[in-house]
């Protein structure tokens, strides 16, 4: 596929911005784990400012920029249709300006509200406006992709959507459905309140709108990783995607079940009847199903690859996987971490069981295995891969990539184990524990273990950055004319596919219907049981802001 020079360079710029964000983010990650463990205690204002940066830069800026860039590549290479150049630039610069506005307000300590920005903690209006622009910029990318897809549909009547594009549609649908919630929260409540146009705000309503967005957000991060695991990894490992139909069903299930589940972040909240919390728990369990299918299908795809490489036996085939390949190393480490991340996620989703772990250190233990490893490592592997494919430069040192992937896996397993032990003991998350008077010496030991893991993770991230920058400094091997992504062939191909599996209106319609059904009673409860309150607070003073 010929890809225009501007797009190749713009995709790389998305990756640069993302990696720049994460470079700052991981430094604060290291500082937090040191401060929490008491090894190097930070003053609270810096700790929480750093925590805000860590969350916003890693989980929002890095992911959004990377995903938008990555999906441009997938869209053009699978559809062989051109994206609109003007919209690519408009989207990028809107997101960039948004990021700068939000970044400046955090760096000047005017938005130390963490990445959940729960009111009545009040940030400067620039923070909310910046976040809005970041999201609006991503919407422009979705618009661009949608127009391109619709043109492909017109030019290719009767053809079914190619597999990787099914994933792109799923990712962007989930994103659009998710961002409705946060857009209502920010545009109608937070911005007018932070500008002083309205005096009062309903914190519980804001939470509910935030988590409408907050959970599908994690699938917006995860599904691009699934895209790589399904459609690229099997080819790199020397095999095929086991089942094309399974992949399609999985991505469609995420469209349907990703959003009507937000209450599993709010099991401990007032003002919402427990029955609706149970309903959302049920749908959260349903959204675990496509991940179970993924575990099976990817394992089958890898087994096929290993057997083709000469592997045999019931289990010993895994020895024949390309463990030394950097791309494989990043993906397999991501997937191993995700096994534990997924299981701990089911614990979080488990309604009453959540009461033991809600807002404890268990939760960051969990999500550093999911977004912080499954997604993060996949994106790092893809960053090197795309840098090679789009710039034509040789990867600086593939072995260094392999090493950094496994090192992260070791680090995160230690880190998360320590954090989860603390969580079970009731030690909170998002807390500068180095200064907490209630920590016992035994608990301190678990936090030090977590810090050891955190230090290993940091070293791994530095090795990655050396490798990535080294790659950029390499000389161009050849002029890139064609961009070839290693898409895997399917072992079981889709034959006689019912048209319903290619009808996006139906699935998006069902998703919207489920959101309406699952959220109407919740908002009814919130409006009848909770109140608007006046005033806003800075994190630095218990007195209301003037």
């Amino acid at each position, binding site marked *: 596929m010929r890809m225009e020079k501007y797009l190749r360079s713009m995709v790389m710029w998305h990756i640069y911005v993302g990696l720049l964000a994460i470079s700052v983010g991981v430094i604060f990650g290291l500082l937090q784990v040191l401060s929490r463990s008491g090894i190097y205690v930070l003053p609270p204002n810096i700790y929480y400012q750093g925590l805000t940066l860590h969350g916003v830069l890693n989980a929002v800026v890095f992911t959004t920029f990377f995903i938008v860039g990555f999906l441009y590549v997938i869209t053009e290479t699978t559809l062989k249709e051109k994206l609109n150049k003007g919209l690519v630039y408009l989207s990028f610069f809107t997101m960039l300006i948004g990021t700068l506005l939000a970044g400046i307000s955090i760096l000047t300590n005017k938005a130390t509200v963490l990445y959940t920005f729960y009111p009545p903690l009040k940030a400067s209006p620039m923070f909310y406006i910046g976040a809005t622009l970041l999201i609006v910029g991503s919407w422009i990318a979705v618009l661009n992709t949608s127009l391109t897809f619709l043109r492909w549909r017109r030019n290719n009547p009767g053809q079914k959507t190619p597999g990787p594009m099914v994933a792109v549609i799923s990712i962007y649908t989930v994103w659009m459905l998710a961002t409705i919630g946060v857009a209502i929260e920010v545009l109608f409540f937070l911005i007018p309140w932070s500008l002083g146009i309205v005096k009062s705000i309903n914190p519980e309503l804001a939470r509910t709108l935030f988590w409408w967005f907050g959970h599908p957000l994690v699938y917006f991060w995860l599904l691009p990783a699934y895209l790589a695991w399904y459609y690229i990894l099997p080819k790199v490992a020397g095999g095929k995607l*086991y089942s094309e139909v399974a992949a399609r069903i999985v991505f469609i299930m995420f469209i349907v079940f990703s959003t009507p589940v937000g209450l599993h972040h709010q099991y401990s909240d*007032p003002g919402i009847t427990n029955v609706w919390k149970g309903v959302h728990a049920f749908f959260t369990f349903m959204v675990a199903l496509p991940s179970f299918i993924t575990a099976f299908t990817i394992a089958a795809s890898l087994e096929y690859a290993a057997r083709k490489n000469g592997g045999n036996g019931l289990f010993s085939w895994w020895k024949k996987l390309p463990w030394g390949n950097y791309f494989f190393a990043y993906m397999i480490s991501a997937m191993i971490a995700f096994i534990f991340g997924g299981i701990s996620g*089911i614990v979080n989703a488990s309604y009453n069981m959540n009461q033991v772990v809600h807002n404890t250190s268990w939760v960051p233990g969990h999500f550093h295995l999911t977004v912080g490893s499954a997604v993060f490592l996949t994106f790092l592997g893809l960053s090197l891969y795309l840098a090679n494919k789009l710039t034509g430069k040789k990867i600086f040192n593939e072995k260094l990539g392999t090493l950094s992937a496994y090192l992260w896996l070791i680090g995160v397993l230690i880190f998360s184990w320590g954090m989860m032990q603390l969580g079970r003991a009731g030690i909170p998350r998002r807390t*500068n524990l180095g200064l*907490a008077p209630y920590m016992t010496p035994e608990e301190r030991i678990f936090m030090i273990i977590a810090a050891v893991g955190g230090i290993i993770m940091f070293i791994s991230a530095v090795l990655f950055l050396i490798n990535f920058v080294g790659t950029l400094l390499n000389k161009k091997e050849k002029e890139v004319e064609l961009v070839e992504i290693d898409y895997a062939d399917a072992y079981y191909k889709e034959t006689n596919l019912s048209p319903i599996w290619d009808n996006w209106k139906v699935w998006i319609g069902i998703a919207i219907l489920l959101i309406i059904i699952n959220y109407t009673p919740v908002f009814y409860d919130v409006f009848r049981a909770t109140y608007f309150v006046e005033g806003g607070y800075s*994190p630095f003073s218990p007195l209301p802001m003037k």
Partner: protein
Amino acid sequence: MDRYENIAIRAALMLIGVFFIAVIGLAILKGIDVPTCITDFPPFKEGKVIKLSDKEYQVQILARMWRFEPNRIEIPAGSKVIIYTTSADVQHGFEIEGKAVNLMAIPGAVNKAEVVFNKPGTYRFVCNEFCGIGHQAMYGEIIVK
């Protein structure tokens, strides 16, 4: 779709079903539940402990930057405690160590849980939602005698 894939999907569905039934079954049969919506208790302005009977207490926890009111509660062993939480300023959390009590304390809303303390001892409760620079020092104790 091939046979093994089919089996894997069915097995996953069954596993999920068992998990869900176990969780909800426990809520219904054993009463281990999450907080629900209450409308009969408006947000309060001060924290207090009210003795309802020898073995029953009502505790109104007012969370504020950066302390709980009250932050030291003494009750006899075997007491049932009905806990209400709300906040005077920003969002807080209220979590009792070793008990399945984990309540958000949200301004403009009231949350409720019931818990029985059979074993004597000191139970730590902490704020588990970020509430500003004093957050890490926000905790209290329930002393069961």
